[in-house]
Structure formats: C-alpha cells, structure tokens
C-alpha cells in the first residue's frame, strides 16, 4: 500500500464514527413516533406529578422529584434507544449487514450511545426548564451543573442493560420487554414516589436497581439521599455497566 492510503485510514475511521452518529440522529428525528414520546414522556409526567400535584409543598417536592425524574428520563432514553432499536435492527438483518461491512468496530454502538446522551440532555433541559419556571425550584449553579453532568454519564448503565435486552428480544417484543423492566424499576427504586411508602421488603430490594444508585448520588447533592456511601453507588453503576456491556457484546458477536 502506498503512503496516502495509510494516512487516509485513521482519518476515515474518525469520519465514520461522526457520520454514523449524524445519520443515526437524522434517522431518529425522521421517526417522530419514536422521538416525540421518548422526549416528552418524562417532562409531562414531571409536570403533572412533580409540579402541579405537589404544588402545596412549597417547591420542595418539585426539587426532590427533579432529581429522580431526571433519572427516570435518562433510564428511558438509554433502555429504549438501545433495547428497541438494536432488537429491530437485529431482526431486520441490518446488524448482520453492518457486521459484514468494514465498519470500524464500535462505530455502531458509539453512535447509539451518543444519541442516548443527546436525548438525555434534551430530557434534562426540559425538566430543568419546567422545574425552574412552573415549579419555582431554585438551586446553586453548581447543583444545576451536577444535575446535567451526572445524568448524561448516568445514561450509560441503562444503555448497557438496553443493549443486552436488545440482543435477547425480537423487534416486536422489545418495547414490551423494556417497559416491563423500566416501569417497575422506576417505582421500586423510588423515582416516582418516595421509597418510604413502599413495603419494607421492597425497600430492601431497591439497591438491585441501577436507577436507585444513580438517584441516590443525585439526591446527595441536595442532601436528600438515604445516607449510603456515594463511592459504593458509583462502583455499583460502573460494575453494572461493564457486566451488561460484556454480556451484550458477547451475544452480538455470536448472533445474526
């Protein structure tokens, strides 16, 4: 091979990653039936249950629920954008076709991860707007910044779980399977309602859910967490992400 060929390889790899992400984005916004509910579901829930119904409590409930609904939102972004799209693309043979092509390894998953993060940013922006305007929530700039940073990184464990579910389910079955995990997880880790109103037995099970750990880290910023060690919460999320990514990638390498 001549020199120019060797030079163009690293250049084209980065370009493939960027193009992959760009077209994944265009594909999603051209599917309003997927994009609109995915982006509006959580903010509307927050407006109804976090702001309007809890109005009597002087903004305290709106502030608490801002953090837990942010987790609810990004968990949905990660689970659905991976679980459902990967299952569909696997069913339709697109994943197999992509594996045959000389696509740089990782470009496919990286594009999906960026999309899940982008959806997470939009979700949190909408939540922040609603909470600061209608909900009259006030926080320090640092607290707002942590809200964004934490949850954008926090989408990753749910991407990993979603990816794994996507390798197990069919395209048609995936939305149901993802919802069957997503909604109970949200309730059982105290995102919609405080954990204290759940039966004792379910409260002790909350730490099995990644959403519990992410919300605990977030709530610690406003002093409302249950008092666990933050490093342990972070370690759980990291290990959870690694294990499910590994399970999923192992299955992807084998499946069609």
């Amino acid at each position: 091979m001549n020199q120019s060929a060797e030079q163009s390889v690293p250049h084209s790899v980065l370009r493939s990653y960027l193009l992959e992400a760009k077209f994944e984005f265009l594909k999603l916004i051209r599917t309003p039936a997927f994009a609109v509910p995915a982006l509006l579901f959580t903010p509307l829930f927050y407006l109804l249950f976090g702001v309007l119904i809890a109005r009597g409590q002087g903004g305290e409930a709106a502030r608490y629920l801002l953090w837990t609904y942010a987790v609810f939102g990004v968990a949905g972004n990660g689970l659905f954008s991976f679980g459902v799209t990967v299952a569909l693309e696997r069913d339709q043979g697109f994943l197999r076709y992509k594996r045959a092509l000389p696509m740089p390894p990782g470009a496919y998953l990286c594009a999906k991860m960026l999309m899940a993060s982008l959806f997470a940013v939009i979700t949190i922006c909408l939540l922040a707007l609603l909470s600061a305007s209608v909900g009259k929530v006030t926080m320090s700039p640092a607290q707002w910044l942590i809200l964004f940073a934490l949850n954008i990184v926090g989408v990753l464990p749910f991407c990993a779980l979603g990816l794994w579910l996507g390798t197990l389910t069919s395209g048609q079955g995936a939305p149901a399977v993802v919802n069957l995990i997503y909604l109970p997880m949200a309730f059982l880790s105290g995102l919609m309602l405080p954990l204290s109103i759940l039966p004792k037995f379910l409260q002790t099970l909350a730490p099995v859910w990644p959403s519990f750990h992410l919300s605990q880290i977030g709530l610690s910023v406003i002093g409302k967490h249950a008092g666990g060690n933050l490093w342990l919460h972070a370690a759980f999320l990291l290990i959870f992400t690694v294990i499910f990514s590994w399970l999923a990638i192992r299955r992807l390498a084998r499946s069609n």
Partner: protein
Amino acid sequence: MLAQLQSVHKNYGAQPALIGVDLHVNAGEVVALLGPNGAGKSTAVALMLGLEVPDSGAAFLLEQSPHQLRARQQMGVMLQTAGIADQYKVSELIILTRSYYPQPMSIEACVALAGLAGLMARRYGQLSGGQQRRVQFALAICGAPKVLFLDEPTTGLDIEAREGLWKAIRNLTESGTGVLLTTHYLEEAEALAHRVAVLNQGKIVAQGSMSDIRALVSQKRISCKTTMPIASVRALAGVLSATRDEAATTVVFTEAPEHVLRQLFALDADLSELEVSRAGLAAAFLQLTQNNQQGAKS
C-alpha cells in the same frame, strides 16, 4: 486468490450446511455459485465474510482472516436482506458506507454504475424494491473493492435493471474485480460467469467453466408437435425423458438427437414446429443435482 474456502465444514445444530467445500475467487473473474434453495450458497458467502465461523477448514479474504478489518476494507457485499431503515436518504447511505473504505470510488462513478441518477435525495423507504436493490448494489461497489460478494443480486429486478446490473458487473471485472455471485437465475450465470460451482445439499457437485458444466451433460432438447402418444415417444431409443405441456408441445431430452429425430420422422410425417437446442444450464443443473441425490440414496 481474493477469497477462498478451504475444505470447509459447517453445521447448524445437527444439520450440515456445508460439507467439505473448496471454493475460490480470482481477480477479474465472476464465479457463479448455483444451487437450489437451502443448498448452502448463503452460508458459503457468510463464511467468506466472517459472519459465520467454519466448524473445520478455513475461510480467507485477501489471504487473511475475514475478521480482519483490513481484509474487509477490500471487499464489497450485497446480502439477500440488508434491513436498511426507511428513513435514510440514498445519498446518506452511500456517504456513510464509502467512509468505511480507505480508497473508495467517486460518488459520481458509483451512481452511474448502479443507475441511481435522480434517486440520491430520496428516502430508502420511498423506493421500489428494484430501486432498493440497486442502492444495495451501489453500497457494495462504493468502496472500490477488489472482491465483490453478490448474494442473489437481481432478485426482484425487472429485465432492464437486471441487464444494467450485469453490465456494471462486467465493467468491474474488466478492471480486475473478482466477483462471487450466488443466483438461482441460470441465465444470470450463463450471461456473467467465467466459472460455475454447483452446490447441492452442502456439497459442490460440479465446478468448472460454463462449457465444462454443459459438457458434463451433453444433452439436446427437442421440442415439436406430434400426434404420437407421449408413451410411444418415451419408448423411442435414445430418449432420456419426454413431456407434453398444455399447448400439446412435446419436449424430449436426449444425447442422440439425430437418432431420435430419424425415428420421429419415420413414425409421424405430420410432425411440426420442430426445434432442436442445446439443453440450457437449467437442464444440466437439474440433472447434476438429481444424479447427486440418486447417488446419495443408492
């Protein structure tokens, strides 16, 4: 050699898909892999692409493992199903796929070869089945690959589009590209292939040039209208098989056409609409796979 399978065995569960298959593609030639559905054609392609791993034997792409990105950067592929999402525009698909290759073909050349002029701004889902197939062909060639895998590329194409694609394939082979083509359209193999391999029940039952394959079965096909009962036609010396269709045309296969014709003329002076032709690849192919099945049974 651009692509090669070396005594490859592959089972799906207990079901053998390929049994000791040797196959290779050289630069500048079209190899047609023929066979009935379920013969193992797509499995052979999947192994050469690294989508499947052989149970024993080896698959090579540009003398390397097909799992090597560097090897796959020199191949293009059109699978039977691509599963491309409807929302992509044709131009986006080509730009993205081109970016995977170090030295791709220009977009203009790719569009011209695949016959996509005027379709670039359209969404994939708005295209007809034939147009989608042409987009998939464009994606296969856009990287200027040294070797091209086409798994039943003309399924769903009309005659004009099919001939356009054949012309593009000939252009590419003239400039040195090697092509592995699976098809069950025999005229496609006859039109394009330098070499043919016939796959049946996971085994290569015949391999060689087009004329080698035809010579393996030196049959001629006689078709005519005759008043003779079909049973009497079958009973003539030298007749291998004889059938009569709804239009009362009798079709006879034989290896001794002159001998059979002499008998026919002697028995039916009013014989009409006579046509004698070399049995096409279809007949050769049918006989090969049938012989193989009988061989397997006995």
